[in-house]
């Protein structure tokens, strides 16, 4: 059953290749094919979810056993991210009725294929290929609005991403030249013990920095604010929600399987906490809503990275919880904010012109802040617990202080929304209903999910357990042909 999951990657590619030709005959309907494909993917994943069960599965591509060929690794974590990606992509799918450029659909499909590939792949170089695929697709999507600002933002994004990818490739090259393998399970046998010195460390750092570009890791995220505030809002929502989380997921796999060294964890913890603090402070200063959300997204990614860098089961669980929360929440916030791309002072009295949208915004932002009993609180609680379990008291305090700064700017925003003084008519902005149905679905998932909290936490714990089980990963992928050439190093 799980073998058919390869279709997740292949079908979007197939459709993307064909779509420019199909579009000539179907015209505006061609967008629909993408939606249908995503629906099919959801069915595929739902069908496979149960069959994966407790033990992870592996797909051998080309039928070659693990260290030779490429493998896809299917466990609950990967499946979960694949499902969430599909759902969000389906909700954000750009179904415009007019002025349809088929190339937009094509890029979306390619981006999604890249996402699936990165999520599922168990091969270092294959991950890099799909990562590049999604990166290149997102360069194109970012410049969609075709404004000067979006070109500049896109160029900035391109430069940083390309340089980051170059470093990641360098890291992979280092690893390959020292081990001669790119299969993650195979490397997980070799690197932690045999490469625990300069080479391993430099490869680890290069990989983390390279993939950190999309993960909004602190000093390599200078594209975030520009891109998120000038790109198409659906693209922004996808980048902030899904793509950044997928990159974090990759970093998690790296530090769990390949580089389980305390120095690397510390490096990530340091960058993560600086990201949180700088992100919150910058958001405090930001004068327009989209930048504010972008900076807060940087901070949230920092939190996820900190959680993963704890590298304990609790930390992984907290990180997944935070990532899922942010993955569902940020797209909704960005869509709500999509018509408020000006100074936040223009938003004064927004609640009068669009009461429901602003109420929803406030609730979601409160969840972002971690106000109980909203879902964000539980995720944050898990993070704090795992930090405490590792006795990172200073980090704990810094995270909490950053939350106060976050509260300061979010409440300032709320008060602007609900300000009673009248604004001149032409300055008034309304959040329109056009983007409302994905927003409602996402917030519905979040808020209704609250009722299944204990259930959800249990399955999260199970996933975290599965994720941190290195033995299971190696055994699943390599199967009988274990310990290949280990002595040669």
């Amino acid at each position, binding site marked *: 059953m799980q073998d058919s999951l390869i279709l997740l990657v292949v079908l979007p590619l197939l459709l993307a290749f064909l779509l420019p030709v199909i579009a000539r005959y179907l015209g505006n309907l061609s967008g629909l094919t993408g939606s249908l494909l995503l629906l099919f993917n959801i069915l595929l994943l739902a069908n496979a979810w149960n069959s994966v069960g407790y033990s992870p599965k592996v797909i051998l591509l080309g039928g070659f056993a693990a260290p030779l060929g490429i493998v896809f690794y299917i466990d609950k974590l990967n499946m979960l991210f694949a499902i969430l990606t599909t759902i969000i992509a389906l909700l954000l799918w750009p179904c415009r009725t007019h002025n349809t450029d088929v190339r937009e659909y094509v890029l979306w499909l390619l981006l999604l294929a890249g996402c699936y590939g990165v999520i599922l792949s168990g091969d270092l170089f294959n991950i890099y290929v799909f990562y590049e695929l999604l990166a290149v697709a997102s360069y194109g999507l970012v410049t969609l609005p075709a404004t000067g600002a979006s070109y500049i933002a896109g160029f*900035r994004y391109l*430069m*940083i991403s390309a*340089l*980051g990818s170059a*470093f990641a490739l360098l890291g992979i090259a280092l690893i390959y030249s020292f081990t001669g393998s790119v299969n993650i399970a195979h490397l997980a046998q070799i690197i932690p013990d045999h490469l625990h010195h*300069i080479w391993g*460390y*430099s490869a680890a*750092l*290069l990989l983390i*920095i390279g993939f950190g*570009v999309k993960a909004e890791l602190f*000093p*390599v995220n*200078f*594209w*975030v*604010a520009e891109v998120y505030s000038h790109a198409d809002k659906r693209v922004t929502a996808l980048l902030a929600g899904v793509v950044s989380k997928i990159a974090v997921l990759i970093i998690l796999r790296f530090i769990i399987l390949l580089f389980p060294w305390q*120095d690397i964890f510390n*490096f990530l913890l340091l960058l993560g906490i600086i990201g949180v*603090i*700088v*992100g919150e*402070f*910058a958001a*405090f*200063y*930001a004068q327009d809503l989209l930048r504010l959300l972008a*900076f807060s997204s940087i901070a949230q990614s920092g939190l996820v990275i900190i959680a993963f860098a704890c590298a304990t089961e609790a930390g992984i669980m907290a990180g997944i919880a935070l990532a899922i929360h942010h993955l569902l929440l940020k797209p909704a916030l960005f869509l709500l904010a999509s018509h408020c791309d000006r100074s936040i002072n223009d938003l004064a009295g927004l609640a009068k012109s669009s009461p429901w949208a602003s109420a929803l915004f406030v609730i979601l932002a*409160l969840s972002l802040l971690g*106000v*109980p*009993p909203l879902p964000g*609180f*539980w995720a944050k*609680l898990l993070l*704090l*617990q795992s*930090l*405490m*379990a590792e006795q990172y008291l200073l980090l*704990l*305090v810094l995270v*909490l*202080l950053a*939350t*106060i*700064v976050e*509260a*300061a700017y979010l*409440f*300032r925003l709320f*008060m602007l929304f*609900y*300000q009673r*003084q009248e604004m001149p008519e032409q300055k008034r902005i309304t959040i329109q209903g056009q983007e409302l149905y994905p927003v409602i679905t996402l917030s519905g998932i979040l808020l209704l999910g609250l009722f299944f*909290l*204990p259930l959800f*936490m249990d399955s999260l714990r199970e996933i975290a357990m599965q994720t941190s089980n290195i033995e299971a990963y190696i055994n699943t992928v390599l199967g009988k042909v274990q310990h290949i050439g280990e002595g040669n190093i």
Partner: protein
Amino acid sequence: MSVLDLDHVFFLLIVNIGIAVLWGNRPFVGKILTLLYILEGLSILTSYHVLLSGAVLSSSLTFTVMQQTVQWQLGVSGGFFALITFMAAGLATWFSSGVWARSYAPIRLLHSYMALNVAAMLLLLASNDFLGLFIAWELVSLVSFLIIAINGGRSAKAAYSYILYAFLGAMAILLALIIIWNATNSFSYVEVRHHWSTMSVNRQLIVVLLLITGFGIKMAILPFHRWQAPAYAYVPAPVAAFLGAISSRMGLFALFIVLLQVVGIDVIQTLWLPFEIINMQTFLLWLAALTLIIPTFIALRQTDARLLLAWHGIGQGGFMLLGILSANALGTAGGIMHVFNHASYQAALFFAVFSVSYRTGTADLDRLGGLVTRMPISFTVMLVGIIGLAGLPPMNGFVSKWLIYKALLDEGMPLLFLAAVIGTLGTILSVYKLIHNTFLGQLRLEHENIKEVPWSMSIPMMILASIVFITGYFPGLLLESIAAMQSTLGISVVDYHLGGVNTGKGNLNMIVVVSTMLMAIGMGALIFFVLGNPRKQVTQWDNYAGGHFLTSDMRYQYSHNFYPGLMRVISPLYRNTIFWLESAIVSTVQFMAHISYALFMQANYLLYLILLVVISLLWVLAV
């Protein structure tokens, strides 16, 4: 166990919220809501004997997360506070239900926020573990923010500063909870108490300090006191009364539960601050004493009656904390009793002040005066209220303050006793200023045509005033539940009777005291009238000032620059250190924010990427 499930109360509260949200604008809704609050109060009162016997009212509402079952059950302490809450909310809604509502446009918001506040507070009072406590705590903070911000403008600004303080507090509590969880692997009060000693002494100290900070911020303990007065003063009348009466006591309740039930006062006594400078208990007592003195003297300076009362609210909170921390049967009893007493007279005082400002349009003490002839009921209520606030017999404030004084003296803390007395002196001075500047002296010209407030507003005031008097007369009414509280918490129980307490060394019987007072007054009156009532009727305008002849159109009212001598002496002490500190923090944050923002906006972004790679690789080479 329980006669009445807590579910009924929760259900009523939801009905409450629903009515307020859906039909809050209709004129009759205020009355319905008042009845509902009274009904809720009564439903707790009818099963109060169960609570007194040590049982709990439990709710079927429950959820399990992280192996922690969070459920809600109301013990006697929660029940006591809940009764005060319902009393305050009910009377405040009553006050706003009649004529007053017509002049206040966002009345629906007010009703809804009030209902939300009450519901959140009940969740807090009924919480049974740290997780439930924290959830309810944040809810209370949020709904308080809403209700404080209701008027916009100044009050919104105050609400903003409130919510920031509240978040600081919440984060402190969260940190404490996480540390506790790490040590005990549980959030339940019982478990935590049981495993408390597994934490190192340092951790215990940190946890206690964090909890004090977190919960103390809500009751505006020093040095986090700056937010409260503006937040409570610039809101509409019923809100001010409600907030002043009970809202900030939620912090006290939580502290009370945590310090006495979970941590235990014996643990507090054995904790020492670093370098063994000072015992934790003594430290906290002095903090409470400062919280009593400083805000009280700040109150003395105020010229706005609302601010004056609000600052007193902070000071009286210090009083309660002083009592509770004295770790003495009398002291804890006095501290808890003061919560009720303070709620009753503070609400009465706020109502009186807001009645005046409802009629005159101002609460500025420099622009009032002589209203006693026009608003006699408000005057009487304020008189009763300030006697209570000043802690003089025969009102209830006297009893609780007496208990606290007695406890401090018994525990051998004469300096603290002195501090309490200084605080009380400040209170007396400022409440005299309040009543004098509002009601005494000559009526101002512009206030000639003023009438007493309508019955819908004066009846709740009078009810409160009579509560102030009755509980002063029969303190045993309150002491019964306080004793039950003490026995459920396992601390020493006060020996009480209807009229007061037996202390062993002496005995306070308010029935005797008040009866004697009343008798003395009666006898005086009797003698006075028997002797033929030799008085001369004078009008308010009969006045004489420094040899200067005053015509009836020149109204004389000594109100500006009150207590000049005293002020000259103490005004150098008003330093605004905390204000300075606050603005320093704000500008630091702004500076940091600017730097962070500039970092993201700079042009040479690639350099940082390369720089990071170079630095991290150099680090690798160095390691």
